[in-house]
């Protein structure tokens, strides 16, 4: 078991390293960073100055090593735009996005799992069809349009919620709703599929034959086994949602990490963007690692091996 954990850990670390290389590479190689920073009409001299100032004149591997070294010491550099330490910026904005993400995934699970179970327990009824329809709609809906529609309904017409901004819990309601639609369809479909399969298994038949009440059969016996793949999926979805937070936060002007990323991209403040992308990736790697652990804990058969 510990061997499994260690192997997973090592793989995750490797993935993290690869991601850092890609992130670094993407930034350095998609265009001359110095030109972008200096502005398109800057003179060659200015560009060269900027190169030296930001260490862009060194060879790529050297730059990478320096960057990595800084990172490991916790130094994320300073914003090109405001010159504040990037680490501080991130620390300020992180709680907002974290709250949004957590609220959204909790909402997604709270909505999708019961619906998936209902669709599986009563297949081919209106419940099942409604759930599948919901999943289809959720998957096809552009998040930014949905956000605007929510705004239109709740903020403009009904005036229940503030249109945009950050501040009170009310500012989080619409973003949470919109963000959860990233995850609801997939979770619901997987829950439904898993439940349908499990409900036809021999041990569920056995549980029914033992005369256990329907509720127990569905929740204790079936759901427990059907939920296994959903755990891993939820971790993956949370990772996607964090990426999608850029869109949602920018529409609602919610001052989280996603909004910061968008602003920074527009301002060419790439050192901030770099850090954010890296952070989100690392978080995703951590999530999948945890999901594996939870899987192992839930399935006794995996534990022994």
């Amino acid at each position, binding site marked *: 078991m510990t061997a499994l954990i260690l192997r997973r850990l090592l793989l995750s670390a490797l993935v993290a390293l690869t991601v850092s290389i890609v992130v670094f590479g993407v930034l350095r190689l998609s265009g001359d960073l110095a030109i972008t920073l200096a502005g398109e009409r800057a003179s060659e001299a200015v560009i060269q100055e900027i190169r030296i100032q930001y260490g862009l004149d060194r060879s790529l591997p050297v730059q990478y090593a320096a960057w990595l070294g800084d990172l490991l010491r916790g130094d994320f550099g300073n914003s090109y735009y405001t010159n504040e330490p990037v680490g501080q910026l991130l620390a300020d904005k992180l709680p907002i996005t974290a709250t949004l993400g957590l609220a959204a995934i909790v909402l997604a699970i709270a909505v999708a799992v019961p619906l998936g179970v209902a669709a599986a327990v009563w297949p081919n009824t209106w419940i099942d069809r409604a759930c599948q329809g919901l999943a289809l709609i959720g998957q096809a809906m552009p998040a930014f349009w949905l956000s605007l529609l929510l705004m239109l309904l709740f903020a403009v017409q009904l005036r229940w919620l503030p249109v945009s901004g950050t501040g009170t819990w009310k500012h989080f309601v619409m973003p949470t709703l919109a963000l959860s639609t990233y995850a609801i369809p997939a979770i619901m479909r997987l829950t439904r599929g898993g439940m349908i399969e499990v409900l036809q298994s021999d041990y569920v038949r056995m549980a029914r034959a033992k005369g256990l009440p329907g509720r127990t059969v569905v929740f204790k016996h079936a759901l427990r086994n059907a939920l296994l793949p959903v755990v891993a999926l939820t971790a993956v979805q949370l990772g996607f949602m964090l990426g999608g937070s850029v869109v949602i936060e920018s529409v609602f002007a919610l001052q989280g990490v996603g909004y910061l990323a968008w602003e920074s991209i527009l301002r060419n403040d790439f050192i901030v*963007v770099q850090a954010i992308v890296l952070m989100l990736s690392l978080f995703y790697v951590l999530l999948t690692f945890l999901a594996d652990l939870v899987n192992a804990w839930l399935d006794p058969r995996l534990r022994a091996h």
Partner: protein
Amino acid sequence: MAGIGVFLVLAVASIAAPWLWPVDPLAQELTNRLRPPVWLGGDWMHPLGTDDLGRDMLSRLLHGGRVSLLIGLSATVISGIIGSALGLIAGYFRGRADSVIMFLINARLSMPLILIALVVVSLAGSSLQMVILVLGFLLWDRFAVVVRAATLQVRGQEFVLAAQVAGASSTRILWSEILPNVFGPLVVVATLEMAHAILLEAALSFLGLGVQPPTPSWGLMVAEGKKHLLFSSWMINIPGFAIFALVLSINLIGDGIRDIAAPDGRH
């Protein structure tokens, strides 16, 4: 099946745009700004109204559809080729190659799509071609996973063994024995990824880092309409709904193909 119908309507309409509705999507008529669509009091000169620069919405919608379809198709082809190649290699050769490719897939999955796309586009310049390239090089992971799984299934079958015994080269086997048999799942993934690409392009354009004005793109139209949310909400709703309808129809087609190919209801 409804999916096919809707999709065909949208696709044909978009492709045939210049003949169907010969109004220049870029022509500004500043005296005719913000006219509402027909059902809200407008006139048939501009059935879907005009935007804040007086441009005809219907025309922009149709041309925007061309953009979405073009980007969706091209990006899917590129990512499909990359992903399928990786999936075939991983599934057929297994061992080292498989581990490496799985690792790459995991690494790619760890990276937030939209952000990376945004970064690349903002650095390399946003244009139609750039968007296609970026999406094409980012969306290959699901292709790889599905094709790999299908390849694993197919490779153990007898006709593959027969070809191996007959001395056919691996490339040949992959191309003539395995590829035709993973076609089913491949097509299904292709439709889903095309829908995904279209949604992503719309998001990028909405954020201002996709297709650049004045080229019409549905995402861009929604962004432009945002300023007039209060009184001219049709400006975001018409393009928004168009995106929704197109993506939904593609998803339905994908589901339909999957049902035909594997009618036992799994997944």
